[in-house]
C-alpha cells in the first residue's frame, strides 16, 4: 500500500575535519513512520537538515514523488510538503500561540480564522491547546504541540520530528503517539529521530540506523530485540572494557537528595538526585541534553546555591558555599558551553585563566593580580594539553572548538582538583582532541581525583567510567558498574526506566 514518498540516495556532507554523513541511502514510504536511529554525533541532524533545506549535500540526491528534490532553503522544503518539529523550539515567549503560529506560516489568514483552524486541528489530532495562551507560560509538552500544529497547518506529506519525547511526560508521550498514528492513517509520513529504543519499537514501521555518518542498516524494529538495535547503534566493536575492579578511596563528593527547580522556565528541575564519587573513581552520567544536566552542573559549581547538606565535599556540607570556596577546597567544574560560560570569548587566554585559577593558583594575593604567574600557568596549559595557538595572548574565540575545550579542561585539570565534574567534555570536538581529553580524565582519576562526567556520548562514558547512571527528566537512575552493564540495561536507562532490574 505504501508508495515511495522520499528517496535519499548517496547523501554525503563533509565539514572541515569531520565527515557528517557518508553515502546515506534509504527511502520512506507514504504513510510510513520511519525511525532515524543513532547516538549523538552519528549524523542524524545533518541528514535531516539536508532534507529540510538548511544544508546542501556535497554528493548524492533526493527524490520526492518521482521528482528531483533539492530545497535551497526551508521555505522550499515546506512548499514541497516537508514539515519539521525541532528539538529546541524556536518560539517567541512573549507572544501567544496564534501569533507564534502565524509567524511561521507563509500567508496566514487573519487571527480569528487562524485561531479557529488551530482549535480544529488540536481537536482532530488530540493536541489540546488554547490559542490565546502566551507561549512563555506553556509547558514543554504544550510548546511542542504549538510546533506540531504549526507544521500540520501546512498539510505536510512528511513530518520530521527531532527527539520529540525528550521533554515529555509519559502521559504526554502516549498522547503524541496517538496523534502520530492518526497522521499515519491519513497518509502522512513521519521521520522520527530518536535514540529511545522501546519507543521506536512501539511506534515505527521501519528504522534506519546511522553510526559515525554512515548508514548501518534499515530494519523493522519490532522484529529486533533491544539488544540487537543497541548493538547496531553503538557498534559490535563495543566490548565492556576489561577493567580490573579497582580499589577506590573514600567518598570525596556526595550529593544527597538534591532537588532543584530550574531557573530557566524551560529547563528541567532536578528531582532528588543522589550520588557519591570516591577518589580514583570515574562516575558517568548519561542522557540526552535537556534532562537536567545544566542544572546539576550549576548546583555543583556553586552558581546556584542549594541546601547546605545536599552537597558534601570531603565530609563538609557545601551546598550554600560560593564557587570560589569550592575551588579553593579543590572542587572544580567545567560547564558545557565553552564560549560565554567556561571562557570569555573576547578576552585573552591569560585573562581566561583567572576565571577559575585565582584561588588555588594564588594568582591574586590581597586582590593584586600576579600576571607573570597567570601567564606562566596559561602557557603551561597550552603546552601540556597541546592547545594549537601561537600565543596565550590570543582571544579565546580565535581557538577552534577542540583546542578551546582542551584549554578549558586543561585549566581545571592542571589545578590538581580533588573532585572534577565536567559536562559534555568532548562535545563538538574533533576525534584527536577528544581522545586527548578522555585520557587526561583517566589520568586524573588514576592520580586519585574523584571524577564525574556528564555526557551524551554513550561510547565515551562506557569506555572510561567505572559506574554509570542515566539522567532522565531530572531524575537519576541507580548507578551500575560499567563492567557489568548490558546494552539492554543501557537502552532502558536512557529511555527513562528508573529501576532497571524491575523491568528486566
Amino acid at each position, binding site marked *: 500500500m505504501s508508495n515511495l514518498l522520499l528517496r535519499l540516495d548517496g547523501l554525503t556532507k563533509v565539514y572541515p575535519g569531520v565527515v557528517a554523513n557518508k553515502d546515506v541511502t534509504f527511502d520512506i514510504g507514504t504513510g510510513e513512520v520511519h525511525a532515524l536511529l543513532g547516538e549523538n554525533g552519528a549524523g542524524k541532524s545533518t541528514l535531516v537538515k539536508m532534507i529540510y533545506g538548511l544544508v546542501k549535500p556535497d554528493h548524492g540526491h533526493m527524490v520526492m514523488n518521482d521528482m528531483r528534490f533539492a530545497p535551497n532553503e526551508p*521555505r522550499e522544503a515546506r512548499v514541497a510538503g516537508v514539515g519539521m518539529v525541532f528539538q529546541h523550539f*524556536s*518560539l*517567541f*515567549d*512573549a*507572544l501567544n500561540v496564534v501569533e507564534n503560529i502565524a*509567524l511561521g506560516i507563509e500567508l*496566514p489568514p487573519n*487571527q480569528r480564522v487562524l485561531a479557529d483552524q488551530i482549535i480544529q486541528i488540536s481537536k482532530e489530532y488530540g493536541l489540546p491547546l488554547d490559542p490565546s495562551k502566551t507561549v512563555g507560560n506553556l509547558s514543554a509538552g504544550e510548546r511542542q504541540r504549538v510546533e506540531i500544529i504549526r507544521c500540520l497547518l501546512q498539510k505536510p506529506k512528511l513530518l520530521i520530528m527531532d527527539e520529540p519525547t525528550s521533554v515529555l511526560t509519559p502521559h504526554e508521550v502516549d498522547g503524541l503517539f496517538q496523534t502520530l498514528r492518526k497522521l499515519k492513517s491519513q497518509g502522512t509520513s513521519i521521520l522520527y529521530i530518536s535514540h529511545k529504543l522501546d519507543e521506536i519499537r512501539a511506534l515505527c514501521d521501519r528504522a534506519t540506523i546511522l553510526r559515525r555518518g554512515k548508514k548501518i542498516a534499515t530494519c523493522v524494529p519490532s522484529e529486533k530485540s533491544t539488544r540487537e538495535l543497541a548493538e547496531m547503534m553503538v557498534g559490535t566493536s563495543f566490548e565492556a572494557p576489561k577493567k580490573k575492579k579497582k580499589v577506590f578511596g573514600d567518598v570525596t563528593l556526595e550529593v544527597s537528595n538534591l532537588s532543584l527547580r530550574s531557573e530557566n522556565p524551560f529547563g528541567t528541575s532536578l528531582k532528588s538526585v543522589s550520588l557519591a564519587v570516591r577518589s580514583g573513581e570515574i562516575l558517568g552520567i548519561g542522557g540526552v541534553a535537556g534532562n537536567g544536566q545544566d542544572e546539576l552542573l550549576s548546583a555543583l559549581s556553586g552558581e546556584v546555591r542549594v541546601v547546605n547538606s545536599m552537597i558534601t565535599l570531603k565530609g563538609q556540607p557545601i551546598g550554600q558555599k560560593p564557587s570560589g570556596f569550592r575551588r579553593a577546597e579543590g572542587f572544580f567544574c567545567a560547564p558545557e558551553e565553552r564560549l560565554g560560560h567556561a571562557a570569555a570569548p573576547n578576552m585573552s587566554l591569560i585573562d581566561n585563566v583567572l576565571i577559575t585559577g585565582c584561588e588555588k593558583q594564588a594568582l591574586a594575593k590581597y586582590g593584586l593580580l600576579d600576571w607573570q604567574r597567570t601567564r606562566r600557568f596559561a602557557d603551561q596549559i597550552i603546552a601540556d594539553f597541546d592547545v594549537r595557538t601561537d600565543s596565550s595572548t590570543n582571544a579565546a574565540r580565535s581557538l577552534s572548538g577542540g583546542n578551546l575545550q582542551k584549554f578549558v579542561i586543561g585549566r581545571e585539570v592542571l589545578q590538581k582538583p580533588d573532585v572534577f565534574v565536567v559536562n559534555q567534555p568532548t562535545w563538538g570536538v574533533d576525534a584527536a582532541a577528544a581522545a586527548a581529553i578522555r585520557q587526561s580524565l583517566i589520568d586524573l582519576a588514576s592520580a586519585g581525583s574523584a571524577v564525574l562526567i556528564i555526557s551524551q556520548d554513550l561510547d565515551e562514558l562506557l569506555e572510561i567510567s567505572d559506574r554509570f547512571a542515566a539522567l532522565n527528566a531530572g531524575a537519576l537512575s541507580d548507578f551500575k558498574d560499567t563492567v557489568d552493564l548490558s546494552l539492554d540495561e543501557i537502552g532502558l536507562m536512557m529511555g527513562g526506566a528508573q529501576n532497571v532490574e524491575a523491568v528486566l
Partner: protein
Amino acid sequence: MDLSSISPVLLIASLIVSATPIILAALGETVVEKAGVLNLGVEGMMITGAVVGFAVAINTENPLFGFLCAAIAASLLSLIFGILTQYLLSNQVATGLGLTMVGLGLSSLIGKPYEGMKSVTLGRLEIPFLSDIPIFGTMLFSHDIVVYFSIILVALTAGFLKYSRLGLVLRAVGESHDAAHALGYKVIRIRLLAIMFGGACSGLGGAYISLVRVPQWTEGMTAGVGWIALAIVVFASWKPWRVLIGAYLFGGVTVLQLNLQAAGISIPVEYLSMSPYLITIAVLVLISVRGGQSAPASLGRSFHALS
C-alpha cells in the same frame, strides 16, 4: 494660599497640551523599543523637530507644513542612528547619547536666526456640539488638531502592533531577533523602519512644543522632555494606551504642581518641582517589583546575522 484660584477646567486642558509632545515621542519610542532597539536620542530628535517645524512655519506661514517637515527632519536624523547601530553595530547607549548631542547642537545652529520670533500657531478646533458643552467642552473638545491626532495615533499604533502582520513581525524581532532571522524575516530592515517612525514621532512632539505649547523658539527649549518620554515608555510597559495614561499622569502632576506653586501653597516650590520625577521613579520601581518581564527580550542587543 489660594487654592480656589486653580481652575480644574484649565488644569485639565493645560495638562492635555503639556502631555501631547510626550505622548508623541513616547509612542514613537515604544515602537522602536518593541522592535528591540533602545534609542536614547529622543531629546535630540525632539529638539530638531522643534526648530525645523518652527523655521518652516515661519517661512511658509503654514504650521501644519511645519509639522510635516519636523517629522521628516527628525526621521532623517534617526536614520543616522539607525545606520550606526544596525549596520555598523555601534553601542546603542553611546550612539543615542551622541544623537542627543548632535540634535541639540544642530538645532541651536539652525534656530539662531529665529529666536524671539512669533510663529503662526495652530488654531483651536471647533467641533460642532462637543465644543459647546459647558465645562467639558473647554476641557476636552477645544484643542488643536494635533492633540486629537496624537490620540488617534495611539489607537492606530496599538492596533498595528496587536493586529497587523507587520506589527506581529516587529514584535517577534524585538523578542528574539535570532529566531525571527531564522524564520526568514529581515531584522535590520524592520528595525530601521521602526527607528525612522520613532524619529518622525519625536519630531512631531518637538514641533508641538515650539509651535503650540509655548509657542516660540528658544535654544534647548525641550528641557529634558525627551528623557521623560523614555521613562514613560517603561512606565507604560511598552503598551501604547498606557503611554497615553502615563503621559497624561505626568503632564497632570507637572501642571498641578505648577498651579500649586502659583497658588502659593505652603510646600516649598522645589519639592513640588521634584515631585513628577520622584513619582516616576516610584512607579518604575513598582513595575520592576511586580515583574518587569514585559521588556522586549532583545532590547538593546546588537543583531549580527551569523551565517
